[in-house]
């Protein structure tokens, strides 16, 4: 199935990943069809203009009180496959609270909800592609995929590039998390260097004394078929 993507190294995880059980009934079985990049694919929506405020990027200030947890800054740049900044585009994030519980009715993990934390944020990238969120370090949480399955701490990111082909939903992980080698979702990215691209770096420059730890995560989107604009560098 991946062979159609072969002009580029296969960096994305496969649809059919037996170690991630939810793929069993959801991964398509037939070969993918090559979609040329014509007008619809070369354009993309411009979202979030006017609908996103500064408060949306600070997940610690969305309620009456402050959430429990380690306060963090997560910031970086969104770049296209050509290395140019993706400016003025929407970034959406969602995450578990410090105890590893999502503010979602489907989440049955018996860890406490935090009345001061919804775990949802968004911002619009700056002219240099930069984004910045203030939030709390999400907790690990168990899931039913396999015996003693725990997801490593992560933040979900949803990105809109400059074209339909650049749309990306992914997850950001934290450095040094011992759960990562055991996580079939992260490990579904086979190429170690590509996997490393999903892990943020501790950044002392982003760290704020007596306030918050800083993590830097730069995101490169696009680079699928039809846009071979640079050599692949892990």
């Amino acid at each position: 199935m991946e062979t159609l993507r072969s002009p580029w190294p296969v960096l994305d995880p496969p649809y059919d990943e037996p170690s991630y059980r939810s793929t069993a009934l959801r991964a398509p079985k037939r070969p993918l069809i090559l979609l040329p990049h014509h007008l619809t694919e070369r354009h993309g929506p411009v979202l979030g203009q006017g609908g996103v405020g500064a408060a949306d990027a600070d997940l610690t200030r969305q309620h009456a009180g402050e959430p429990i947890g380690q306060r963090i800054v997560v910031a970086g740049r969104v770049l296209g496959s050509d290395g140019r900044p993706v400016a003025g585009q929407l970034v959406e994030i969602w995450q578990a609270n410090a105890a590893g519980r999502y503010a979602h009715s489907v989440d049955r993990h018996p860890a406490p909800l935090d009345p001061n934390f919804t775990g949802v944020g968004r911002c619009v990238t700056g002219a240099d592609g930069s984004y910045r969120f203030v939030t709390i370090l999400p907790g690990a949480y168990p899931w039913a995929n396999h015996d003693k399955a725990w997801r490593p701490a992560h933040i979900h990111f949803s990105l809109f590039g400059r074209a339909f082909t650049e749309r990306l939903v992914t997850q950001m992980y934290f450095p040094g998390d011992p759960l990562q080698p055991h996580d079939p979702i992260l490990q579904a990215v086979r190429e170690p260097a590509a996997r490393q691209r999903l892990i943020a770096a501790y950044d002392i420059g982003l760290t704020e004394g007596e306030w918050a730890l800083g993590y830097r995560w730069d995101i490169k989107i696009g680079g699928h078929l039809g846009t071979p604009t640079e050599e692949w560098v892990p």
Partner: protein
Amino acid sequence: MTPSQTAGPFLAIGVAWMEAERLVDPAAPGAVRIHGRVLDGAGQPVPDAVIEIWQADAVGRFPPEAPWSGFGRSLTDAAGRFRFVTVRPAALPSPEGPEAPHIDVSIFARGLLQRLVTRIYFPDEVAANGADPVLRSIADGAARRSLVAVAEADGSLRFDVHLQGPEETAFFAY
């Protein structure tokens, strides 16, 4: 590049704020209702998917020239249903010949390590669909037909997404 990861079971909390099922007013001239279900390989509804659509406007413009977003987002319900109100996009020129009116679709869900990409075509565009370079590139007739919505008696269009099975929808690498 940054690899894809699944949107997971809780994506609704992150994306529901921008649910956009009505790209135009249902009473607007030319409004088209498009709806369907997302079904898994056991034929069961997928209640935790997000469907996004992206298209040209009725005269073939995209933002910022077009006076609308061209973007829709619908969260599936317990029966796996999604729904949009939009307009039929114009046919578009391409280096391989004119493309029939079409809507690009992204599907995100738990169990999908990457989004799925497909297209919706219109059932009454028989001649344009027959000449469409993307449809023509699909050798398998059933796969080709899976991209064409079904006209319902009430004037709406139904586009069911079968992730697997004998009616598996044609999905694209891009």
